[in-house]
């Protein structure tokens, strides 16, 4: 039997989750906490198999609590619960050392399933949306350049100077310089060579200079 502690400042949520875990013979809810402080005390005392932690707590960030719990124990399962959307919370939970990430609109069974997973392999992160989130994270590789910036970058790769680029694009030299400094900024570069290196690495330009110049 796996012992569970519920950490959420909303009593109703704790009540609902307790019902769900009580239906399952593999789990026993041994404690509930409404704050991070209380959670740390209870968890230190009871050493549960799994902690269910809301990402937002009145006295601390839930993810900070997760980090402290993970630092204290490698073996405890930690399931992060949230009402927020946005991938940054999912990746935040992953980085804090959580075992699983579940949103609060998911059925109670999902949370129990996540707790089951967490109890068995606390260091193998899982989330229902993980694959999609990873795809979204990788999709626009790092910086997003505007179409005009991509044009300017391509010309920089061809070795054109500021004046030549300005002339070809029918824009002023100062505008061209602004585009270039934005490109440097987005690519984290301080000069043309660095910018071109990281653009190559990110696949923004190809190795062979494109022959189709207008």
């Amino acid at each position, binding site marked *: 039997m796996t012992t569970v502690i519920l950490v959420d400042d909303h009593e109703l*949520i704790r009540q609902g989750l307790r019902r769900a875990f009580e239906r399952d013979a593999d789990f026993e809810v041994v404690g509930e906490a409404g704050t991070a402080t209380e959670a740390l005390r209870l968890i230190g005392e009871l050493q549960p198999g799994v902690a269910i932690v809301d990402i937002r707590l009145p006295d601390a960030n839930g993810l900070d609590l997760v980090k402290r719990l993970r630092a204290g124990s490698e073996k405890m399962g930690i399931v992060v619960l949230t009402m927020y*959307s*946005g991938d940054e919370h999912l990746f935040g939970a992953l980085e804090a050392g959580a075992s699983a990430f579940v949103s*609060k609109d998911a059925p109670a069974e999902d949370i129990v399933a996540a707790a089951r997973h967490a109890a068995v392999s606390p260091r193998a992160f899982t989330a229902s949306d993980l694959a999609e989130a990873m795809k979204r994270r990788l999709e626009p590789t790092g910086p997003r350049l*505007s179409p*005009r910036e991509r044009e300017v970058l391509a010309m920089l790769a061809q070795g054109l100077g500021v004046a030549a680029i300005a002339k070809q694009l029918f*824009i*002023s*030299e100062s505008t061209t310089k602004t*585009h270039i400094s934005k490109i440097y900024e987005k690519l984290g570069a301080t000069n043309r060579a660095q910018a071109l290196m990281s653009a190559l690495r990110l696949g923004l330009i190809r190795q062979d200079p494109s022959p189709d110049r207008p």
Partner: protein
Amino acid sequence: MLGAFFTGSAIVERQRLGLAARATLLLLCSGLSLVDSLHQANGSLDVLGRLSVLVAIAILAVVAGAAWPQSVWVPVAEAASVAVLVMANAGPHQPLLPYLLAPALEAGLIAGVRGAVATAGAAAAMFLAASPFEIRKGQSLTYSSTASEWVLLALATGLLAAWARRLGVRTAGSNEAYPAAYRLMTQLRTVSRHLSGGLDALSLAHIVLQQLRDRTGFDRAAVFVPGPEGELVVLAGEGNVPDWDTSLASDGLMAEVWSQQRGAARQSGFSGTKGLVSMALPLTIGARTVGVVALERRFKWEMEDDIDSLTSILDEAALRIETALLFSEIRTIATAEERRRLAREIHDGIAQELAFLGYVLDDLAARSEQEDMQGELRDLRAQVTRVVGDLRLSIFELRSEVQGQTGLGAALSDYVRSIGAASAMTVHLVLDETPNRLPVEAEAELLRIAQESVTNARKHSGAQNLWVTCRINPPAARLTIEDDGTGLGTGRDDSYGIQIMRERADRLGATLSISTRPEGGTKVDVALQARPVEIASDQGAGRDQ
């Protein structure tokens, strides 16, 4: 600025008091002199002469006081002159002595105890210096006691004034500021109720451009104000101005005008183009630059000194535009705060309660023995999940905002991405931004319009695909949101949303069109445009030849 205003009004108050004191004392002295002249042998002619000199001294003192309002030397010199007048020409002429109170009062108000002592001292010194020559025999004793009485009275008046001044300085700082601020806020409230979009910086900027167009022609012009990252952003423009050099770090004309606070012109366009002339004028309030107005055209300006007169018509506009910008900033801050509060309220309230209901339904379904009941409970559970999912997105929407570092493009793509994650729609996003940004308020309104139309598509259209296109080219911008759903229905569900979108678009001065796509689905199109250059400007330019 307010501090200077109060000091200014305090000076006016003090000058009024000085004038009143002088007038009263002149009347008193005249009365006393006339009464005195009845008992004197040397007639009224002398008396009138002395009185005219006293009046002249008083007028001189008032004029000099207006020229050097903070100088204590004016009342000191005034007191000394009066003392000389009292002694001159077979003095002393005691009826003129009361006038000494006037300079003492003023000196006390200007410079406190120091001023009072200096004025009384100057008068006393003059009396002492003149006494051996002028005093007629036999009068010496009465004279010196009367003179010293008046010198002491003048000193006392000056000290009283110094005391009053200290009280005044203390109260002017605290009490007067409140009524003034209150008046200002009341005016703002009145104005904001009359204008559809509150105190509208955009319209004010267009009025400025119109005024400049009337005074001198231009092909392209724009009003720039500092943006979130310290660069200049277009507040309002006529003609297409995106490639102008607005960097404050460069050696461009706008940067020069911004730092020098003086209008300037160049024999080239703002993007360095030959054959154009450009002019930039500062929008200043006191010693602060709050914006730059830039004009460009093909033919050279008529007169160089035009710059100063053009700059002068901007002074009032600067104050108005700055106030409007502050007002809209306050509104933005208040709105953002309210949105965060709403997000917290939904997050901690109804969202959690519905989530709990979901868990209860899960429990009931798990315990139920009857299969049909289980099925119904699962269906109900799916509905609750959907509603909680909607609430989660609402919370996200309320929390996402345009900020200093996060421009419209970044905020929009974050939002659209999370919609893609949370709904069945495939989202296609096209972003095209120039390095220059729109004013933050405009970005915020555009983001809200996009959110509203995306929400409509998600909730009501059953669309498979969503296309979001955003092109920003300040001061122009265009945002389109298309879906392949069921299209505009009766409009009952979302009419409130559409109304709010229209209000937002109006506030921006943008056009909003909502139509049904030929292929099916809905298209929302928001266009924020630079005002097209009128043909009149060409004629205006031609006239200058």
